[in-house]
């Protein structure tokens, strides 16, 4: 396994609908779940799946993300056969290009892949929250002698119109891909997770790069091209929690999902499949004398003196006595002063909420409080 499959993680997206949360960092670096950044999930999955070589493709606001990834040591991807390659767009002999699409990003790093010389390439997205063992998916790919295996999630018929849908035969071989179909024929939604046999991928990328009409996108261009060429494409059904957090509301909801005792993400289960992250140097969290903390998740380094319920509190956050935080996400270093009330909100990192503010008390929609 070690040298068989290289993972390429697409982490260049801005995530415009996350508003000011992605003003200075790319979407994969957005905070989630009290101690994580979203990119911790695919990288931890890769690490626990026995993948030791990962390329991370960055573009939008790449500095913070590149620093965070470092040599991959947060996820243990710094062992003797490990590669944690940070791959922003670069100037080459042929000039300088931004990544023009998901497929183009991989195409521009064919030299990186050639150096690694893998049998298989796993394409991942840096902005999904889920726990998945890719080794099982690779076994499935091999078993079906596939050229491409696409991980799919079985969604409801109503949801299906919002996703890229894989239409499959009885043996789960894919015969058609439809992007956001008005009348879906199937409910198998693509998760944007692909395992390619490298040779097939390499040929397809080179063809695609020469096609001036292509948008250089895996869903829109590469998959239809492979289908047209009668390649072996299979759908691999994933069962479990998976979330693409594209908006403030969905980021909030994904945080709230953690408070459900059923723990469908399995964040508190599977000890040998922990989500790995940056090491924080803070004290254990302190809960004050008159504090009241219920139905919440609180990280190391937070200090709570006020009333917190139904919320997710990050490190370095301070909730003063007399402050009330309900159904909210309080990001690192945010400070809620005495008297303030915050409801149904995401408070961005290092934001100070003064004691006079009553935010979104009767709120139906989630609000983002930022500087």
């Amino acid at each position, binding site marked *: 396994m070690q040298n068989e499959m290289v993972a390429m993680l697409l982490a260049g997206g801005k995530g415009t609908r996350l508003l000011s949360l992605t003003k200075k960092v790319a979407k994969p670096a957005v905070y989630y779940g009290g*101690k994580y950044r979203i990119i911790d999930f695919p990288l931890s999955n890769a690490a626990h799946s026995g993948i030791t070589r990962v390329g991370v493709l960055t573009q939008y606001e790449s500095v913070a993300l590149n620093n965070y990834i470092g040599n991959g040591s947060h996820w243990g991807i710094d062992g003797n056969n490990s590669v944690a390659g940070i791959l922003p767009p670069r100037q080459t002999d042929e000039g300088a290009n931004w990544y023009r699409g998901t497929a183009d990003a991989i195409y521009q790093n064919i030299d990186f892949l050639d150096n690694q010389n893998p049998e298989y390439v796993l394409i991942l997205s840096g902005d999904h929250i889920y726990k998945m063992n890719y080794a099982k998916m690779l076994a499935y790919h091999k078993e079906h002698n596939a050229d491409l295996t696409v991980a799919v999630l079985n969604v409801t018929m109503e949801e299906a119109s919002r996703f890229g849908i894989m239409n499959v035969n009885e043996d789960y071989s894919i015969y058609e891909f439809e992007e956001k179909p008005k009348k879906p024929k199937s409910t198998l939604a693509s998760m944007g997770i692909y395992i390619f046999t490298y040779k097939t991928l390499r040929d397809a990328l080179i063809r695609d790069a020469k096609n001036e009409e292509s948008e250089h996108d895996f869903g829109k261009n590469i998959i239809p091209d492979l289908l047209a060429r009668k390649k072996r494409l299979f759908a691999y059904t994933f069962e479990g929690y998976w979330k693409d957090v594209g908006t403030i509301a969905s980021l909030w909801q994904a945080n709230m999902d953690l408070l459900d005792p059923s723990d469908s993400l399995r*964040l508190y289960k599977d000890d040998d499949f922990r989500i790995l992250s940056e090491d924080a140097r803070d004290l254990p969290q302190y809960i004050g004398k008159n*504090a009241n*903390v*219920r139905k919440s998740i*609180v990280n190391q380094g937070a200090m709570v003196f006020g009333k917190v319920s139904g919320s997710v509190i990050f490190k370095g956050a301070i909730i003063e006595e007399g402050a009330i935080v309900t159904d909210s996400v309080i990001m690192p270093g945010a400070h809620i002063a005495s008297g303030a009330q915050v409801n149904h909100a995401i408070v961005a990192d290092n934001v100070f909420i003064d004691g006079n503010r009553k935010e979104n008390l009767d709120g139906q929609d989630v609000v983002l409080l930022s500087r």
Partner: protein
Amino acid sequence: MPHILGLANLHGAPHLGPLTERRSIASTSFLGRYAFVDFTLSNFSNSGIDQMGILVEEKLRSLVKHIGSGVSYNANTKRGFCSIMYNEQYSSSPAYNNDINNLIENHWVLDQSNADYIIFAPCHLLYRMDYREALQYHIKKKASVTMIYKKFEDGQNSFINRDELKLDENGRVLNIVPNKGAKKNINISLETYIISRSKLEEFLEFAKDTSHFFSIRDVLSYMTGQLYIHSFAYEGYLRCFSSEEDYYRFSLELLNPDVLNSLFAPDWPIYTRTYDTPPVRYGDDAKISNSFVSNGSMIDGTVKGSIIGRSVTIEKGAKIENCIIMSDAHIGANAKLKNCIVDNGAKVIHCNDLKGDSDQPLIVRERDIV
């Protein structure tokens, strides 16, 4: 800055009753997520010292597990090192098992180091100190050895049997004696010494030629008359952990923010091993106040005035008051615990009422089920 080798000295450390039955105080859990040795090594690291050794007297296993390769403590993982120094040969003969014999046996650490000065520091005395100022003072005074001490006003009740320094008016150390609690005002030794490399080599030779039972402290005590041993006054947080009662008292005392802020400072991080445990999850029925809680824990009971370690489960209906619950412990539904220490991995599931005294905690031992 001259090159310095920092040695955490575990020889002659006191025991904390059942807590140190299977581990040394150095690797005993403190404040949920730390071990005592973290503070010693972080003092070195934050003082710009990147070369470290740990002089181990006994009970190696738990320390090795905690330290790992030691990279958590080094600013540069290639230039720096953190070597575990253990004297297998003398491990079962207590009289020989001292820091000098350990240094002779593990002389390779000195050989591989380019240090001009060696700083010895213990793990059972907890303090926060930047050694750079003391070293400058040591160099300026042209001392052979500089011993760090703190002026203390409660010598009758604390630091009993720990070393007291008798100083002349210029700060020269005249004598080292155990504190028998006779006087209020004493200069208590931090058991922390700055020694130049050449002087340390002389001490090793001297001990070999004089007595194989000599420790560094014994050599220093023996030589106070002949050598220019100076002293450097430390001011700030200092606690000596010499019993399980001390451990209990000085741990819970950190719930007082004034005490906490005298040990911890924002510019003085304490490095430790990380376990990547998820944040603490509080259930619908959780009631928690005045407590430290470490990551990975799941709390659905009532917790008051306590310290909760990593990955502890406290079930609904359980009541914890003035307790220290260490990592991976499990407190079952409806258990009531007051003034207790529950060691790593222990389970309180059958007994519903455990109560210690406020100055003498009841201890549930490591991995015991009660």
